[in-house]
């Protein structure tokens, strides 16, 4: 089995996780910029993080022959300080030409505030101006439904946004169809206690179809499972879904979306 992990915060994981992922069939990993667990206090703190995502982490993954790609942004959790956000967004273009950068992400909303909305709009404008793919984080728990709708409104209001170049992540049963209806891609995150479990993820595929959907573990420094994607393949097999169905969801779909960025290239041995 081959699969792409399209959303993993690998700077938070051990090298053992890289080894386990490659052993399970992972052929590429993509890492969106993320919150560190505390608010970074300066632009230089973000610059160091972007260097980690574009220099150090790809080299660490390469030790396991795993291509590593990244997305850059300021996380919605850090959007309340508008002055810092403006200064951080100003340095992102310095990194966009780096060979493993796929686009702007994960941007979005956290607690659905006006400042978060402003920074989201600025990120969207930045992505459009630089012709970048966009990866969107949707809020947690009770904030997800409202936040998803606000995000759809922001994206819909920008004339330069092409829905087929945007993936809206962490969808659940109450948000997936409204994302797909607007022409965007939808990401299902397999995460303990919040977001989705493997059985619910496969339910969503059976109900909504498998087009424009990817799955990811979003493994990070919290309780999470870097092997959640291949474990979901087991759930599909238990239900009698074909190997072609599994390959479409876990490999061909993310490959199709990510290949819209010409820098997303993986070895021919991966069967792409």
């Amino acid at each position, binding site marked *: 089995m081959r699969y792409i992990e399209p959303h993993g915060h690998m700077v938070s994981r051990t090298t053992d996780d890289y080894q386990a992922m490659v052993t399970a069939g992972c052929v590429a990993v993509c890492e969106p910029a993320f919150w560190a667990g505390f608010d970074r206090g300066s632009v230089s703190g973000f610059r160091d993080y972007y260097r980690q995502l574009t220099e150090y982490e790809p080299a660490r993954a390469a030790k396991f022959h795993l291509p590593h790609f990244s997305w850059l942004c300021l996380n919605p959790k850090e959007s309340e300080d508008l002055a810092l956000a403006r200064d951080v967004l100003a340095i992102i273009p310095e990194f966009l030409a780096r060979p493993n950068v796929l686009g702007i992400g994960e941007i979005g909303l956290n607690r659905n*505030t006006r400042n978060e909305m402003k920074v989201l709009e600025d990120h969207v404008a930045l992505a459009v101006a630089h012709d970048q793919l966009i990866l969107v984080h949707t809020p947690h728990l009770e904030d997800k*439904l409202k936040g998803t709708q606000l995000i759809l409104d922001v994206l819909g209001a920008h004339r330069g946004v092409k829905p087929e170049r945007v993936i809206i992540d962490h969808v659940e*049963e109450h948000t997936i169809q*409204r994302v797909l*209806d607007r022409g965007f891609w939808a990401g299902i995150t397999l995460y303990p206690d919040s977001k989705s479990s493997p059985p619910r993820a496969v339910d969503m595929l059976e*109900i*909504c179809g498998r087009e424009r959907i990817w799955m990811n573990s979003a493994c990070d420094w919290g309780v999470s499972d870097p092997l959640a994607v291949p474990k979901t393949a087991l759930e599909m097999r*238990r*239900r009698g879904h074909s190997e072609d169905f599994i390959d479409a969801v876990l490999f061909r779909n993310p490959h199709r979306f990510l290949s819209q960025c010409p820098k997303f290239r993986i070895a021919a041995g991966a069967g792409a």
Partner: protein
Amino acid sequence: MPKQPTRSPSVLLPANLQPRAAVDHGFIPVRAKLIEVAAFLDRVERYGAADDFRCAALRSAAEILVDGRPERARRILESLSDPTTAPEEKSSGKAALGAWLPQPTARGARKVKGKASAARR
């Protein structure tokens, strides 16, 4: 509550569908989770915390399980969601809690900010 999306007309089930297998595989883990819900509700009563808004939201959401209508997962998620539509003026600085707590007004009553619809399906 935002407008409902269109529902998918088709269901993508495996070609060799085995209904009994779905029960065989899923029943024991789900039975365990249901008992966990019951034990949790017993526990918060025993501890005098049953009137916490999250416990009340959980009891209300649980009614959806046995109302005989489909799309239970979607409707439970919606029942636990913030139904308002306007952005918040500022962040509380706190994490999401899992159920929606209406904002208190100056008089102590609960106020629904920017609520578009009270529909809870």
